[in-house]
């Protein structure tokens, strides 16, 4: 009960802060999805952000038969936007085929988050880059190439 009240108060406050970050960003920041790591992942993408020095690692577990990303986890060292975009990106990729997931764009991620402040747009690159690297890492490990996903 008490927890509910606290949550409502927090939601109210989050809406107040919406002039900086959207409600969706704040929601995911407070409760990020798919955080953590996968032991023996099928693919791992590690990226560092040259703009402000942040780091993001995305782990994927891929079904070798269907190419479907069955599980995905992320670890993020970065700002509020970085945490929200890594959460959103992994949510979008989960259950998709490699080909579909590779097509996710930073714009889609940012739009799904209800937009990001201008100077925070690069944080969304980080998540999409990490996902793409994880996919490439998987393909390379399996003697395949990115061309497989084209067409």
């Amino acid at each position, binding site marked *: 009960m008490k927890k509910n009240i606290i949550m409502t108060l*927090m939601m109210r*406050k*989050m809406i107040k*802060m919406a002039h900086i970050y959207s409600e969706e960003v704040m929601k995911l*920041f*407070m409760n*990020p999805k798919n*955080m*953590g790591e996968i032991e023996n992942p099928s693919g791992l993408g*590690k990226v*560092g952000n*040259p*703009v*402000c*020095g*942040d*780091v*993001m*690692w995305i782990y994927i577990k891929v079904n070798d038969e269907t190419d479907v990303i069955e599980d995905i986890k*992320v*670890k*993020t*060292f*970065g*700002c*509020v936007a*970085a*945490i929200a975009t890594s959460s959103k990106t992994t949510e979008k990729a989960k259950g998709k085929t490699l080909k579909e997931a590779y097509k996710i764009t930073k714009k889609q991620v940012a739009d799904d988050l209800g937009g990001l402040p201008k*100077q925070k747009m*690069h944080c969304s690159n980080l998540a999409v880059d990490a996902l793409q690297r994880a996919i490439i890492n998987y393909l390379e490990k399996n003697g395949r190439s990115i061309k497989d996903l084209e067409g």
Partner: protein
Amino acid sequence: MKVYFDNNASTRVDSAVIEAMMPYFTEIISPPSSDYGHSFGVEAKEALDSARETIAAKINVKPSEIIFTSGQAESNNFAVKGIAFANIGKERKTFLASNVSHSTVLDSLSALKKLGFIVKLIKVDSKGFIDRNHLRELLSDSNDTPLLVSVPHGNVEIGTVEDIKEIAYICHEYNVPLHVEATYSFCKVPFDASVVDLATITSHLIHGPKGVGALYIKKGLKIQKLIDGGLQENKKRGGTENLPSIVGFAKAVEIYSQEINERVAELRDYLWQTFEKKISDFQITGPTKTEKRLPNHFSVVISYVEGESILLHLDLLDFMIATGSACSSKQLKASHVLSAIGLPTEVSHGSVRIGLSKYNTKEEIDQFIEHLSSIIARLRAISPMNAEFMREWQDLKDQGAIIEEEHHHDINDAEDD
């Protein structure tokens, strides 16, 4: 209940200060001047004089050497540009400022650079203290004797309190005047401004109103005024004086006792101890000896987590603090102070700084540490960084695989701050 731990950004105005100010809004409304001849003007003038005396006495200078301004930014602009403009067309063109000077000083200097002046930055050590040898080296260039040296007394980001007497002694050996940015140390650390040539102080960090401060100008120093259009302030700043605020400023000085400093320092030490007990993997920024720090100041970098995230989590819980993380700055650059003391960006990311005041309590500190440690645990759980990561990272850096961007305060684009 909101808990405000950002008292080096601004402070709550003391109710005694507000009370002292009130009559000057509604009753004594004349500009302070004896020339008008009516009693209101004289009363206003008396109030102005008495405020000036209080403030001058606090830093051991003459009342006539105190010029009231609109605060820190104006005082720093005045100090730096006033010296420059008084020396236009002369041979000397160089300004020295500390690498960790306040942005209002550095930005004023970058404006001067565009007018043909030269700016050189003095290095600091890993605790933020001026590198004496470097200062001497810059001062001793006989072809290029500086017009002015500017250093901070207390550093807002890392709490360092500089030994001003020593710096003044060195500058004066070379006959170069010294400006001291004393905004953050004023009333908190004893300061004898009579040994320096210019000093910036302000009201709103000591429970006085915002928008008022002063510049101490040593008698005889040649400085050009910035605001023309009146003979006010010893002919050094035109415009009707902001009397209610000046009266409030003086009242704030009057009631800021040593006892307050001791009480706040005790709270700060309690915060420091509790922090060390409850939180692992961090590094104090600035001096670790409390006597060399601002009494209300605590600052750290917390490993493997990022400052903006910490700040927002705390804000949602109604605790207000500050950070120097690159992610929380508009240009995504780490604070120039944290870079100047040699912290790489990924380390300065975890910057957290706290400014306490007499209105804070031990209970607030206990709650704060509790919240902070659970926030850190949450953020660390989702962070790829840990001790092992940092070792690998360092190895890669040592091998030259990661190229650190230079993050010192870029004097050329300082104006976009």
